[in-house]
């Protein structure tokens, strides 16, 4: 089966080819799809941060939305106050979120599953109201996060959304490249060992707490980056953009992707973006009453979720692998 052994070089080539394909795609699809593409790229980063945390280090977060918020605000503050270029704003988002992630991770390392879920949930409920306590965070309406117009050399007809997509897609590709290398490294193996055989891992001299805190910190950094990309696509950052439902959506996306493999992350991301729109269309075609059109999208999304968890719990990629190995 494994005749073609993937090396670092071939994988890098794969990423570059994927990038070229996305570049080609961005020039052929219409503006709405380009905008949605940027959102997909945001989800790719955010969901992979959950995969790193849950699938590899075995920790559960129901409050990742809060970490995205920290990244979004960090990026906007740096951009607005120092007129920093976009990539510096993104790096600031990563560092700030990673810092808070490390603090949170230090607490989290002591907690088991549901207690950690409760803590992160309380964080996601509590954090947004902070924005109203400090004036520099802009209150309910939030801050502007304007990355500026696309450079002039791209031409007059080059749209703002295409520019968002290019930035988001490139960011996601770089993040994925880094993450898959990390997960293949000794760190990745350590995390897996800690998750599946924690006692054995401890006996083998692995510092479990430190390994978990590191995973939380890196996951938070990725989440912060996703938050910056999210804020870019809506050109603003406000507490309302990071509701509890975002945290839940990310956990959902991780399950749809398959929580133990990075390979399926695009599936979960596309599903999160596409399903509400598809459900909307179907609801309007089928639905006669207002009750039906209003509630059908929610029904379809929830139904799909339940079916996925019940029948494809480990995600489509793992499912395929299992089938092939049989």
């Amino acid at each position, binding site marked *: 089966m494994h005749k073609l052994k993937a090396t670092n070089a071939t994988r890098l080539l794969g990423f570059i080819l994927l990038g070229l394909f996305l570049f080609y795609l961005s020039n052929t699809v219409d503006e709405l799809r380009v905008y949605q593409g940027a959102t997909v790229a945001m989800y790719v980063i955010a969901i992979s941060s959950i995969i790193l945390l849950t699938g590899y280090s075995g920790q559960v977060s129901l409050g990742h939305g809060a970490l995205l918020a920290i990244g979004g605000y960090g990026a906007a503050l740096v951009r607005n106050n120092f007129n920093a270029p976009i990539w510096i704003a993104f790096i600031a988002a990563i560092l700030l979120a990673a810092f808070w992630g490390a603090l949170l991770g230090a607490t989290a390392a002591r907690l088991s599953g549901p207690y950690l879920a409760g803590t992160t949930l309380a964080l996601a409920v509590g954090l947004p109201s902070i924005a*109203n306590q400090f004036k520099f965070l802009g209150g309910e309406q939030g801050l502007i996060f304007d990355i500026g117009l696309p450079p002039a050399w791209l031409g007059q007809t080059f749209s703002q959304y295409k520019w968002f997509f290019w930035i988001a897609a490139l960011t996601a590709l770089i993040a994925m490249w880094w993450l898959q290398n990390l997960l293949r490294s000794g760190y990745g193996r350590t995390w897996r060992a800690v998750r599946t055989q924690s006692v054995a891992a401890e006996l083998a001299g692995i510092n479990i707490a430190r390994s978990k805190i590191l995973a939380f910190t890196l996951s938070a950094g990725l989440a912060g980056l996703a938050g910056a990309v999210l804020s870019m696509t809506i050109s603003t950052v*406000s507490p309302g953009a990071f509701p509890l439902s975002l945290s839940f959506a990310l956990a959902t996306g991780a399950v749809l992707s398959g929580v133990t493999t990075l390979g399926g992350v695009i599936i979960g991301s596309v599903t999160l973006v596409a399903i509400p729109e598809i459900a909307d269309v179907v609801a309007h075609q089928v639905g006669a009453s207002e009750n039906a059109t209003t509630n059908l999208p929610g029904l379809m999304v929830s139904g799909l979720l339940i079916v996925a968890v019940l029948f494809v719990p480990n995600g489509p990629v793992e499912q395929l692998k299992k089938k092939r190995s049989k």
Partner: protein
Amino acid sequence: MIRKNRRKLISASAVIAAGSMLLAATPAQAAEQGVSATSIKLGITIPMTGIASPGYNKIPGAMKAYFDYVNANGGVNGRKITLVVKDDQYIPTLAVAKANELILKDKVFALIGTLGTASTKAISRSAQLSARGIPSLFVNTGFSGFADKKAYPTSFSILPSYQMEAKVIGKYLDDNYAGKKIGLIYQDDDFGVDALNGFKQAGINFAIKVPYAAGSQGVAGVAGTWITKLQAAAPDVVILFGVSSATAAALGNAYAYKYAPKWILGSVGGDATTLAASKVPPAFLAGAKGLSFAPAPSDSADEYIKMFMDVNTTYNKGVAFDNNIVAGMTSAFLAVQAIKAAGPNLTRKGLMSAIEKGASTFANPALTPLGYSATSHVGATGYWIGTYDATGALKPDGGKYTVYTTDSGTGPVVLSNYKRPAMPAKGLPN
């Protein structure tokens, strides 16, 4: 049967008229997005589900009902208005996504009635409404910023700002309760902070200010603590400047604790229908003061309210008639007037300049002057203050609407003698 046929006849002749007009016009001129010879497509994104949706999710239905009424009577310049509704759950990210679907996929002519400051701001920025010249009509937020033509050139306000409201309340307190101890319950976000600025300008000093976090009114026990705080400070007059669920919670707990100061209810939370449905007995509210810029939903003597009630019965399945229905129909009414004024050759630019040029004199239900001009996109510019009666309905004092007008800046609050233009026959565009 006859009526139906007549409607058909009217629409048929409208089609013919519009068709001949198109033929007469110079050929090959591309029509504006969302406009055809027989139709105009508008779009709204608003919370239809989610925690912010109760009440507001009635607005699109009310708009649709009025549009249907107009369509059934021949439409505007021969065009029928359709409204595409999207659910953004009050989440800015979703609001942008839905606005993009409306603009890029449904290809609407204009947005109308987007709700929430954060969502509206995000839509305006990210979807680049100004660069693309897409009108955003009558946004449902009291944030004064959207009336700023420089910052949001294609957005038009309708609601008076929270700051205006606070200034009007301040003036009322000065005139009637000088020297009394004043208390305030307010939402601790932009909504409340804008109001605090207005109260400050009006020179009001509070004996006690009770802030609450948005959403926390739903947490068991929270509203109870507001009342114990007020009881301890014992102000003579208490202003309730919160959303309707918070106002209902405050009044409900006050009733439970037999606490009865003089109440003044802000316009956002003071919807009589919502309060009547809560557990506050209407008699408890009797004598409280309330504000509005539109006529009270209970005022069936008002020609607009009467017409809206009829439209609501016929085209909206007679859902409970409240402030939200009035708000939705008012926006729809104003939109129809604007589209009519923009003429048969409808363009986005034309629509916006029609509002700038003429909307301050358009027929409309608001009891305060509209501030639209070439330099300003301010909608209603003030409030009338009335009293809740023993049935829980807000009634103008002495049967006459006393209207105060002001601005969102440092301008004074003045008593207005504005006379609203008469409603066109049957409430249809004339």
